[in-house]
């Protein structure tokens, strides 16, 4: 893949990738875009390792998910206070974008793996096999995360309605 083909892939994949990361970061647009930039740069630098065994989009989402996990780990390791403040920031940002407040609050009830599986399956319309490739988990593990996520979110939605 050359630079031109890569730029085409950026144009195709930037929106779904940024949306996925933004939802994963519970509405923190700046952090999500930083992770997306990092993921695209890593993909560009390691283009020769893309073997074509999965689609380019799946490969890119896998890099982005790894970048997100690294950033989360670094935030937890170096400044535990920052993680707490991140949650507050997410809630504040949710207040600003009222139309997405309900979504971010619902996603807040799930852990990272559940959130990832749910967002990829329902919002980004990835198959179970693709989600397994992205998260490097067996398909059955993805299924169980997805079913737990659905259960937790259903409960939250029920409570929210009542």
């Amino acid at each position, binding site marked *: 893949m050359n630079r031109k083909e890569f730029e085409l892939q950026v144009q195709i994949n930037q929106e779904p990738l*940024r949306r996925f990361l933004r939802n994963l970061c519970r509405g923190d647009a700046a952090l999500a875009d930083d992770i997306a930039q990092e993921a695209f740069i890593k993909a560009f630098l390691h283009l020769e390792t893309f073997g074509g065994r999965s689609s380019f989009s799946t490969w890119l989402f896998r890099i982005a998910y790894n970048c997100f996990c690294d950033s989360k780990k670094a935030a937890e390791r170096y400044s535990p206070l920052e993680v707490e403040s991140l949650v507050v920031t997410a809630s504040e940002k949710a207040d600003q974008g009222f139309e997405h407040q309900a979504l971010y609050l619902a996603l807040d009830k799930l852990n990272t793996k559940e959130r990832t599986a749910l967002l990829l399956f329902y919002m980004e319309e990835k198959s179970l096999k693709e989600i397994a490739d992205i998260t490097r988990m067996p398909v059955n593990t993805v299924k169980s995360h997805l079913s737990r996520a659905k259960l937790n979110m259903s409960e939250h939605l029920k409570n929210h309605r009542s």
Partner: protein
Amino acid sequence: MKEDPIKTFLSSHKETLPEDGFNARLFNTLDYLPQPKHSANRSPLIVGIFAGIGILLFVLLGGYNALLNGLSTMDRIFFDLNALTPDILSACIMLALAFVALIRFAARSYHR
């Protein structure tokens, strides 16, 4: 058919993100990075070389005659399992592995 409430909820909150200069910022950064190396797919070449070596050895070592002799004695194996010598057994295993490798290569090339 009952609609999945979670699917409906997530679909209704699916954002359409404006590009907001994201691509331009990224492409500017890429200008300062080393350009990707073009890695050629060498597997057809490797398969071709080894297939050529295999055919050459087959011809030079009288493989055709050995094959005919082998095939003519094959029927004995079905009647008498003691006729199944280690060299016949290993030849059968190698042949099966060669077929598996060939089918896998063809399937991968087709999917690419």
